[in-house]
């Protein structure tokens, strides 16, 4: 709570951005995002698009895992469903790109609700494993339903076209992916100002109590899975437009673990955490690579020698965050903010 921001209405209390300073920062951030593609190199644009796709997927996962407390290790497989949906629509039906993305989201939501059914009886880690099972089954379908998925060879996707403009390069796709990422995050943030979002949180905190309070567990748990899958489906559809080829091996099980790691590093049950987690986890391998590059003059052929170190550092980061900073980057962020708000006083 900041000094001088006494709220007088409930609406003000619930607002997403409660001060003008915040709004100004947000405006600056958006302006930067718009200006970014005109300044950045191809590589940074590529990374930005990838990060934005991950932000969408991680936000979705945070809805089901961070806010509703249902662990899902199937997010990558759901992305696969979305990617195949787009690939199929684009190659066989030729429908417009935005419609394809929406359809991908809706189809994946339906699949997600189906996969969520065990969550009615199964809890905690058992549920996590059940979602692994679902993703294995989805993977089998990707690899063997030849008429739709073209088997292990996969499908090549033509570039997205929106109103006659071809979005082939990261530069063009950036203007499709980033707004969608913004919308997704905004949607998720608003979700938790509604009855549905609060019901999710109640279920996470104690599902039996939530039921006593009159929240139908069946409906809300499935809804949570469906929502998370919708996000995954859209992210997967964008992924398909971005990489332009979809194969069963594009969405391995470790990709799901990557997403789970992202919400843990970012902060479970925090929208900001989803963003920070997605950015951090996507950039860590790249940053480590730069580190290896810096070390190469000192060690001959450091690329080959130091590469396993990257795997180790990746693991250590996950462990380190969980042991020392369980609330993730979102907590570090708010600590830094608090420091500036309260300065020169101590927190």
């Amino acid at each position, binding site marked *: 709570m900041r000094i001088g921001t006494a709220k007088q209405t409930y609406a003000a209390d619930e607002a997403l951005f409660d001060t003008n300073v915040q709004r100004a920062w947000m405006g600056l951030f958006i302006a930067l995002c718009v200006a970014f593609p005109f300044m950045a190199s191809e590589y940074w644009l590529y990374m930005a698009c990838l990060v934005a796709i991950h932000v969408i997927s991680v936000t979705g996962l945070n809805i089901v895992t961070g806010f509703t407390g249902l662990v899902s290790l199937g997010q990558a497989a759901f992305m696969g469903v979305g990617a195949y949906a787009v690939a199929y629509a684009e190659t066989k039906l030729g429908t417009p790109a935005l419609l394809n993305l929406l359809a991908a989201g809706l189809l994946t939501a339906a699949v997600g609700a189906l996969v969520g059914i065990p969550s009615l009886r199964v809890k905690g*880690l058992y549920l996590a494993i059940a979602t692994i099972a679902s993703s294995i*089954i989805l993977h089998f379908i990707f690899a063997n339903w030849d008429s739709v998925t073209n088997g292990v060879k996969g499908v090549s996707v033509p570039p997205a076209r929106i109103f006659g403009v071809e979005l082939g390069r990261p530069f063009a796709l950036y203007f499709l992916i980033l707004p969608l990422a913004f919308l997704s995050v905004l949607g998720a943030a608003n979700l938790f100002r509604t009855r549905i979002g609060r019901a999710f949180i109640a279920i996470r905190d104690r599902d039996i109590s939530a039921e006593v309070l009159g929240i139908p567990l069946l409906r809300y748990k499935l809804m949570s899975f469906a929502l998370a899958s919708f996000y995954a489906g859209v992210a997967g559809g964008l992924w398909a437009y971005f990489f332009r080829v979809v194969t069963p091996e594009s969405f391995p099980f470790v990709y799901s673990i990557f997403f789970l790691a992202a919400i843990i590093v970012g902060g479970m049950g925090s929208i900001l955490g989803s963003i920070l987690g997605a950015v951090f986890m996507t950039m860590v391998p790249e940053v480590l690579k730069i580190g290896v590059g810096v070390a190469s003059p000192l060690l001959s052929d450091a690329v080959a020698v130091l590469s*396993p170190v990257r*795997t*180790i550092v990746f693991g250590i980061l996950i462990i380190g965050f*969980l042991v020392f900073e369980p609330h993730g980057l979102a907590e570090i962020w708010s600590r830094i903010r608090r420091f500036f708000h309260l300065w020169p006083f101590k927190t």
Partner: protein
Amino acid sequence: MSGFDWLFFTEVSLAGLGAGALLALTGLAFVLIYKATKVVNLAIGEMLMIGAYVFFSFTAGLGLPWWAALIAALAAGGLLGAVVERAIIRPMLGESAISVFMVTIGLGSVLIGLVELTWGAAPTSLPDFMGKAPVFIGPAYVSRKIVIGFAVAAAVIAVFLIAFRYWRGGVALRATATDQGAAYSCGINVPAIFSMAWVFAGVAAAGAGVLVGAVGGISPNMGVFGLSALVVVIVGGLDSIAGALIGGILVGLIEAWAGTYLGGEYKLLTTFGLLLIVLMIRPYGLFGTVEIERL
């Protein structure tokens, strides 16, 4: 087709039993840790890998006889379990199960990196130490390694079952599993029990690693075997040793039948399908303890 080939079916089933025993042994390591500390250790596959690599170093590298190398591998596995418990798991006490689960995923990544750093990334195979003569049960052929694997796994699981029934430490572990607070107040050193469970699990995993490595070769990504073992313990029930055994055999048999009569690509599908069905009927596995929730 002149009727059903029963000999073939028997051979396939025996092979499935053997593979199931390896899964059960790895499952045992899962169960030990879960029972004592309520941690699902996803790094068990990587711990298994470390055991196999240590064995490899001592036999192929230093030229020790296989039994000496085996002892070294088991000791290394136990040591690894102890270090992991003390350094990573202990500070996580009281955190949510999911967080601890994720910690073990991080641990798995660290172990893979260490193996690549120490032994290189190339796949290789363990020197043969099990002999070569084929084994026939009646007219049915069984692979020798699978027979040895089955015997070892069965013996180890039997020893653990007996130990939990009669040995003081085993009883203490069961007490801890049932109610930590009560165990504390009875004078049981709960942290020591935690360490013990991890050490034993590390030893079991290293032993399983040597067996799995002998059958399938070793490489930095052999840890995926742990995922199959995870299915076994979920089917059997996360906190039941007998469940691991029966789950292992069940999964082994079903994989063998599916692989033979449907084709290899159906193996994973059927095991995970089985997993889903079991979970829908019995949410805590076949033999797992049902957790009763109170408000």
